[in-house]
């Protein structure tokens, strides 16, 4: 409904009141929450002054789970109940998890549909639940730091996340009771954090090199006049600093001739030692690795690791990231020479090897002024501030792209692309199908994401069944399936039979996600006693929405109702508005919501007329090049 936009150009109706919104970087190894306070964007610390919250949750038998530093302390002594790197499991099936192998030392319970569950003393936990626990802790920190309830959060995801992974992240937020203002791609957030758009001179192309704990993203953005436009994005959703640790741990294991099968605690010991050594070697040229306190019977002598040797171990992983970088430059149709700035993101870009190899590729040193661990959260906070409506006038606009192509399974197990990757979002595409048998009334559709030609290589997103197709001769029915990807990068599919106009019912079976019902059950389970509060809150929310709509329409009608509408059309809108006021003064939030829909529909054409009218007036007498 475009009415609001016109009635109040660039200014809020009420006296300026700052809405509290945060940016959340939900990371593989650690997470952060940030906000804009008195014009300054900053990450929020806990009571001990720590900004980074380890993305670790420890489940206990009869207590609330521990999150963050407290949980991290038990990674070795309570390995099976202390969950880390859960981001790697988001939107993934049991097969993917098997591929992650020993890096995931948990007892998994395969679940027929959806993500594998982790068996803890407090019961089976899905990756979405674990993420929700982390998000809850971050929101609590945000609310206590900012001193009030949040209107919502911008949550960042790797640009390379597919639909299932994005949906899982959004589900986690829903489970934690957070309003998601936007899922924002991490590299885009990082570019925003540097505030490069403020400088008039700073027009040009930016590369964001984001090597985190578990994912690698590379994005190429173009920036002009406050608009950030992603040209191309690429990377590897299973490549990160954790791989550095595993490489070093594996080297230790071989060097000391340890058995191939290590238990959870031993594995954690090695990984922790590897990380310690890796970080030390950023400053020192050699590190002494000590196996004192080894959780096992054997004893091992100290081991020396030089920076030079470590670089040799890690070089293949860095090379893989650089290959993906070159591919993405080509996708963006730019060359290394076009890149004006390189933004570094993720703790793993602290590695000197990574910085050297990136500088070598781009022939200029990357930007490292902002802490690479915090830069994403800071950018997300800026965007949250904009989205919550705290800024006015010509504001920052982020235009992102679809990271991975969307397609459909066709005959012979081939994938037919419906939307190519790097297409700007939101995007909608329609595809037509027909029946192949006389009297056929149903049709199965399989949606996939990825760049591969074969169904078996792509990622299965969902299977749809269209039912209720009117029985016709083979090939006579025309079914139009519409794919729509919203600004969060999330897919929605709808279908309609064209000759009869019947909307075929679409049954969604998410391949790895949770169904709405499952989420609803989980929310119910965790919120058993607040049912009353929730409906009261819904009522208030709907009343606010209704008031806004009534106000906007009243202003609009006063302004140009008589000029643009017939008396009858005006009458119709006024009548629906009266009905809405009646519903608004009642207690039933469903009734209000329903009447808002009716009202919005009744005034939609009017809104479109006003928009056209205002564009016409704005464009009147101007040639395109003057605009």
């Amino acid at each position, binding site marked *: 409904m475009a009415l609001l936009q016109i009635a109040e150009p660039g200014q809020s109706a009420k006296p300026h009141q700052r809405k509290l919104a945060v940016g959340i970087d939900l990371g593989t190894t650690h997470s952060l929450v940030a906000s804009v306070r008195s014009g300054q964007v900053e990450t929020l610390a806990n009571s001990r002054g720590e900004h980074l919250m380890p993305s670790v949750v420890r489940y206990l038998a009869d207590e609330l789970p521990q999150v963050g530093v407290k949980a991290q302390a038990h990674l070795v002594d309570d390995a099976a109940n202390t969950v880390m790197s859960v981001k790697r499991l988001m939107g993934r099936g049991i097969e993917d998890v098997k591929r992650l192998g020993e890096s995931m030392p948990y007892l998994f319970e395969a679940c027929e549909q959806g993500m594998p569950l982790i068996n803890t003393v407090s019961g089976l936990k899905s990756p979405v639940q674990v993420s929700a626990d982390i998000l809850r802790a971050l929101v609590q920190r945000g609310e206590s730091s900012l001193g009030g309830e949040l209107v919502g959060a911008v949550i960042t995801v790797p640009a390379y996340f597919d639909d299932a992974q994005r949906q899982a992240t959004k589900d986690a937020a829903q489970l934690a009771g957070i309003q998601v203002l936007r899922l924002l791609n991490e590299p885009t957030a990082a570019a925003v954090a540097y505030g490069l758009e403020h400088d008039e001179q700073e027009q040009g192309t930016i590369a964001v090199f984001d090597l985190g704990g578990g994912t690698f993203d590379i994005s190429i953005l173009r920036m002009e006049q406050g608009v950030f436009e992603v040209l191309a994005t690429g990377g590897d959703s299973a490549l990160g600093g954790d791989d550095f640790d595993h490489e070093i741990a594996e080297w230790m294991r071989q060097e000391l001739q340890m058995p191939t099968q290590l238990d959870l605690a031993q594995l954690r010991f090695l990984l922790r030692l590897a990380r310690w050594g890796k970080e030390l070697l950023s400053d020192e040229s050699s590190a002494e690795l000590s196996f004192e306190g080894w959780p096992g019977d054997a004893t091992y002598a100290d081991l020396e690791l030089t920076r030079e040797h470590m670089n040799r171990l890690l070089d293949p992983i860095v090379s893989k990231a650089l290959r993906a970088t070159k591919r993405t430059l080509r996708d963006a149709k730019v060359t290394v020479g076009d890149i004006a700035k390189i933004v570094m993101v993720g703790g793993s870009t602290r590695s000197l090897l990574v910085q050297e190899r990136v500088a070598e590729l781009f022939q200029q040193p990357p930007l490292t002024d902002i802490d690479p661990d915090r830069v994403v959260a800071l950018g997300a906070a800026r965007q949250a501030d904009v*989205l919550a409506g705290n800024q006015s006038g010509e504001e920052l606009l982020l235009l992102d792209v679809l990271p991975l192509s969307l397609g459909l399974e066709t005959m012979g197990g081939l994938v037919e692309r419906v939307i190519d990757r790097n297409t700007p979002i939101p995007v909608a595409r329609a595809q037509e199908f027909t029946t192949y048998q006389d009297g056929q009334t149903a049709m199965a559709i399989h949606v996939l994401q990825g760049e591969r030609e074969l169904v078996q290589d792509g990622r299965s997103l969902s299977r749809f069944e269209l039912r209720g197709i009117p029985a016709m001769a083979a090939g006579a029915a025309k079914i139009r399936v519409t794919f729509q990807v919203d600004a969060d990068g999330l897919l929605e599919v709808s279908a309609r039979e064209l000759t009869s106009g019947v909307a075929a019912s679409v049954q969604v079976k998410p391949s790895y996600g949770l169904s709405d019902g499952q989420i609803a059950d989980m929310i119910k389970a965790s919120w058993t006693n607040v049912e009353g509060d929730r409906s009261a809150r819904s009522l208030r929310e709907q009343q606010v929405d209704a008031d806004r709509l009534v106000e906007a329409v009243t202003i609009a009608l006063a302004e140009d109702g008589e000029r643009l509408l017939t008396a009858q059309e005006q009458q119709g809108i006024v009548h629906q508005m009266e009905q809405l006021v009646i519903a608004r003064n009642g207690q039933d939030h469903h009734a209000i919501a329903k009447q808002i829909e009716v009202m919005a529909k009744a005034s939609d054409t009017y809104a*479109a007329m006003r928009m056209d009218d205002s564009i016409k007036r704005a464009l009147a007498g101007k040639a395109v090049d003057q605009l």
Partner: protein
Amino acid sequence: MDISQDYFSCYGLSRDYSLDLAGLRQVHRRLQQAHHPDRFVTGSDSEQRRAVQITAYLNQAYATLSKPLTRGLYLLQLQGMDPLAPTNTQMPMDFLLQQIELREALEDMSEAQDPEAKIDAMATKLQCQASLLEGDFEQAYGSSDFERAETAVRKLQFIVKLQQQLDALEGVLLD
């Protein structure tokens, strides 16, 4: 914003083949600024849905008008023609023979001694042909010779397809 109108009207343009790309881009930016879902995050569900629909429409409109091939195809569709109909397979023989040659050259390229130079040479050649066809289309369309315009745009489609394959090959060889 009426998303049932044609793409040219949406940007206030007349239905011409040649257009000012920079101007189109600027109008597109302004419309996006006004209608992007980011502007309606705290709005109602229906406002948000509408913003997604409008922006998807704008993205599609811009993608269609900003590329010579899709712009040409779209202009003919607005004339009620269907240049991509599966039944529409008639092409001049000399053009088809030339296409076969180009395709063979492309296939041989991956085994060539110096593929990069060969790729560059072919890219230049294809770009040159594309420009000629675009000129041809513009002239034919401008004089309402839609049959000739259709032939030109269908030839252009072959060339664009080859350009895409060449790009993909370059990606594989340089990786």
